[in-house]
């Protein structure tokens, strides 16, 4: 029997996390435009609200009132369903991310700021997260357009290639921490010295690269690829269906940034302040995640797009061997009990 | 015939016609202002000077319109000497010509402009002010004279002397004050006044009805035939931006009209431009005539004819040969023969062009087997018929709306005309193209075929009578099944 207070706390957490995710997705569209503008000596949106802060709202209203087009010969059911599949995994996977340490208010412990404390959190996240590619593939296929189809095909090939690297780097982290529970992984990095980034520098680098590819972001945005494929898989999409793809992309970015924070940057741990209160930890988490999100935007407006064969070459010939090597070395260290980094960390 | 050499080319020339005529018939361009093939040459403008060598004598510059070809003559129209002489003449002609091309109606088809451009002398060398003269001198209702622009070629003077043989204009006063004027400043009269505006090589004589109406390069021009009398003068119909016919000009046709046309034909575009055209079709429904699709109207006409079986086809004399043939074929199904309404000869008959017979295609229709019936007889025939189909532009105008109104109410009438006729007898009205909107042939009184051209688009939903007749044939059951129904 769950007490109603517990239920209330749960509902509040869900509302906070979901609401937060959706708003971050919206704000990211603004941030994207603002940062890109600044990097190009421009001002960016500044008409709607102070500093253009209400721009996402205006965009949302616009998307709702736009005409929703569907090409002749499109697979109607799948065409409608694809944006949902694209957006849904991001919303589901956010459930297992632990955003803070135990929330203590007035001496009462309300648990971590997370919707679900799953023992196989990493597995769940990877399993569900891997589904998001179906949205892209189905959207591309159902549109009955050659550009969309090409975009969908590329997305699927790319996702499969880079998912391997991603999982292998996560495996190394799991091997170090010895658990699949994300909350426990982040608990294991309470001090800055124990952050996995120190023990897994190569793994971290590979993870960041693979994470760009997983979210179809520049320089790996072959699913969209404006130069060749018009807009790739969402060429034929308009109105809220298009907005849903957009939201899905930014939510996926947010989730994977959270994951990176948890896996490599110690989640809510605050550097040099071990006993920091939960809200400071939460703030630290947000700051670390924001850093990754900024990195996404920053890289997009800096690097040119790869060629598709270069992308596949990089994925299979460089990233995968490196990830395997990283896992092998980590495995050797762990099995021999040479936990050098943990010792170093304890010194700090 | 004599053999001469023009610009190195051996040609045969008629010694009775001026040298310029021989040049023009052999595509050698010699400028001309005062010379006109239809008028006697005077050599007053001096612009047609060419270098002529005869025998051993050195070449001399002579006016080509007053020199007649002689055996062995060697003519060079492009020699430096000829060019220089012509340029000097031109400079004199332009000495007092006002530079008002921007407001001049002739601009764009002006011989003076064209040749000045060809000679390339852009600036004048005179410093004195140009001679001021009257710019808006009315010469009657048809013509306005701009004395400043006139280069005194005297074409207009000779035209009245030679063609209608009624001298009305003259060159009066002396020297640079010479102007064209009528005797005692009386207004011009006669019905060939309009021709002098075409004749004028500059913009001195303009038509009141065309003055400032359009720039000539904006006009779409098509060869057509005048429909005001059975002479069938060849014309050029000129339309501004596909809407209004702005002017009708004679087209050179030595078999019919030469270079001239009477003012009745020249200004006969008021009914072509007439407003309130019937756009589409009207069909009788319970309260009155209502707008219908062309097909529905044709079906109504067909049903009307099938119901009565005996049909009187009354057509207008403006019907083309092609339309007449189609109608003749169609009317055979009802065992009747169309009749065209032939109005009485009017008093316009003269010795120059006008025949006084207002039916442009009388001969064509008669040759087809369609007979003409005077207006009164036609109306009598109508009163005897139960079912009447009126076809062709201006047919209602010809027999008169009152004649239709006087018919018994039981009579069924169908009208194919440019304008609607809203009378209780009328079962259907179908809009048709007028003679500026369709193609076809009229045969004039001497048997010369004259084409009529579609120079402007028809209004919306309006088609030529020929197309309607084609559709009627398609919509009507074949002759055999009609016979079966009759049995």
């Amino acid at each position, binding site marked *: 029997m769950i007490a109603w207070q517990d239920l209330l706390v749960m509902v509040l957490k869900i509302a906070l996390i979901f609401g937060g995710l959706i708003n971050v997705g919206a704000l990211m569209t603004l941030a994207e435009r603002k940062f890109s503008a600044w990097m190009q*000596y*421009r001002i960016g949106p500044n008409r709607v609200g102070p500093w253009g802060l209400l721009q996402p709202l205006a965009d949302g209203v616009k998307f709702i009132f736009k005409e929703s087009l569907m090409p002749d010969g499109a697979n109607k059911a799948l065409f409608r369903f694809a944006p949902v599949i694209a957006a849904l995994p991001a919303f589901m996977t956010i459930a297992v991310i632990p955003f803070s340490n135990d929330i203590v208010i007035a001496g009462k412990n309300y648990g971590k700021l997370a919707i679900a404390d799953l023992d196989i959190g990493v597995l769940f996240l990877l399993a569900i997260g891997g589904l998001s590619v179906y949205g892209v593939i189905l959207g591309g296929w159902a549109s009955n357009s050659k550009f969309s189809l090409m975009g969908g095909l590329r997305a699927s090939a790319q996702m499969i290639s880079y998912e391997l690297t991603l999982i292998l780097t996560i495996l190394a982290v799991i091997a170090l921490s010895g658990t699949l529970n994300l909350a426990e992984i982040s608990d294991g990095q309470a001090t800055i010295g124990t952050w996995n980034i120190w023990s897994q520098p190569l793994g971290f680098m590979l993870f960041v690269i693979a994470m760009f590819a997983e979210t179809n972001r520049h320089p790996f945005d072959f699913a969209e690829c404006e130069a060749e494929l018009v807009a790739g898989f969402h060429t034929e999409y308009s109105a809220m269906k298009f907005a849903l793809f957009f939201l899905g992309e930014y939510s996926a970015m947010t989730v994977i940034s959270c994951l990176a924070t948890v896996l490599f940057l110690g989640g809510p741990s605050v550097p040099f302040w071990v006993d920091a209160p939960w809200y400071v930890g939460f703030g630290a988490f947000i700051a670390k995640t924001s850093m990754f999100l900024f990195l996404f935007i920053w890289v997009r*407006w*800096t690097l040119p797009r790869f060629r598709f064969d270069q992308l596949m070459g990089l994925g299979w010939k460089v990233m995968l061997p490196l990830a395997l090597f990283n896992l092998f070395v980590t495995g050797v260290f762990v099995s021999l009990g040479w936990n050098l980094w943990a010792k170093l960390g304890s010194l700090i | 015939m004599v053999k001469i050499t023009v610009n190195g080319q051996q040609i045969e020339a008629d010694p009775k016609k001026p040298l310029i005529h021989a040049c023009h018939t052999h595509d050698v361009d010699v400028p001309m202002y005062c010379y006109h093939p239809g008028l006697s040459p005077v050599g007053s403008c001096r612009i047609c000077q060419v270098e002529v060598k005869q025998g051993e004598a050195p070449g001399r510059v002579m006016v080509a319109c007053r020199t007649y070809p002689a055996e062995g003559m060697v003519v060079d129209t492009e020699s430096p000497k000829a060019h220089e002489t012509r340029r000097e003449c031109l400079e004199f002609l332009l000495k007092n010509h006002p530079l008002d*091309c921007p*407001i001049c109606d002739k601009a764009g088809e002006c011989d003076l402009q064209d040749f000045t451009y060809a000679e390339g002398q852009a600036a004048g060398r005179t410093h004195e002010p140009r001679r001021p003269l009257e710019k*808006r001198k009315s010469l009657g209702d048809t013509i306005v004279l701009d004395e400043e622009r006139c280069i005194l070629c005297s074409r207009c003077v000779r035209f009245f002397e030679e063609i209608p043989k009624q001298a009305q204009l003259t060159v009066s006063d002396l020297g640079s004050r010479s102007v064209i004027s009528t005797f005692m400043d009386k207004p011009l009269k006669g019905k060939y006044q309009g021709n002098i505006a075409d004749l004028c090589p500059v913009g001195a004589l303009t038509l009141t009805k065309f003055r400032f109406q359009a*720039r000539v390069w*904006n006009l779409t021009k098509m060869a057509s035939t005048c429909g005001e009398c059975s002479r069938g003068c060849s014309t050029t119909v000129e339309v501004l931006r596909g809407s209004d016919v702005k002017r009708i000009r004679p087209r050179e046709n030595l078999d019919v009209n030469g270079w001239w046309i009477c003012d009745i034909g020249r200004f006969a575009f008021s009914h072509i431009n007439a407003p309130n055209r019937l756009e589409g079709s009207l069909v009788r429904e319970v309260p009155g005539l209502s707008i219908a699709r062309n097909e529905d109207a044709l079906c109504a006409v067909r049903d009307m004819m099938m119901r009565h079986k005996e049909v009187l086809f009354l057509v207008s004399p403006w019907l083309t040969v092609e339309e007449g043939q189609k109608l003749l074929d169609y009317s055979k199904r009802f065992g009747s023969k169309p009749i065209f309404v032939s109005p009485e000869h009017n008093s316009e008959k003269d010795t120059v062009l006008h025949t006084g017979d207002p039916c442009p295609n009388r001969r064509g229709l008669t040759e087809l087997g369609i007979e003409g019936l005077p207006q009164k007889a036609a109306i009598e025939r109508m009163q005897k018929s139960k079912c009447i189909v009126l076809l062709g532009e201006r047919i209602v105008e010809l027999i008169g709306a009152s004649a239709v109104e006087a018919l018994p109410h039981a009579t069924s009438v169908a009208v194919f005309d440019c304008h609607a006729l809203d009378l209780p007898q009328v079962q259907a009205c179908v809009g048709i193209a007028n003679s500026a909107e369709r193609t076809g042939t009229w045969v004039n009184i001497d048997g010369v075929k004259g084409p009529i051209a579609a120079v402007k688009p028809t209004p919306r939903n309006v088609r030529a009578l020929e197309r309607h007749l084609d559709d009627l044939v398609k919509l009507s059951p074949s002759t055999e099944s009609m016979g079966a129904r009759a049995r």
Partner: protein
Amino acid sequence: MVIVKRKELSFAEQLYIPEILRGLSITFRKMFEPKVTRQYPEEALIKTDVTRGQPRLVVNEDNSIACVSCGLCEAACPAYAITIDGGETEREIEREPKRFDIDMLRCILCGFCEEACPKDAIYMSDELELADYSREALIYDMDKLKRPKKALQDRIDYVNRINDRWQTPSST
């Protein structure tokens, strides 16, 4: 035929990572540099002598239109934007436009009309704003096109200056 060899990449360049970081540092620095965006409706456009705005008709000091509807601008217009119907007037010049329409949606602001005009009656003004709710409203008639000569004086002076320059033989 020229064969251009690709630049040999050094080891550091082949690694990409240092080069990427270099690129990132550049874009990061650019974020704090001055912006070049002009806030259009609030900040006016910079107009110079050569600015060619929409064509406008000159109205003389005595309130009469300078145009005589000769139709040369209509003929010169490459976009077929101009439609003129002329007519007679009691003034000394005899002819004036009864209808002078410029379809501003067609107008490409090329200035050929200005160049063609023999009566100095049409000039490219400095007016550039062009927005309305219907296509019909953007077909400007004479009332919308008329401007007093004073309002166009800058452009008239400029055109006269340029024409003088053309007519003067070059000093070489």
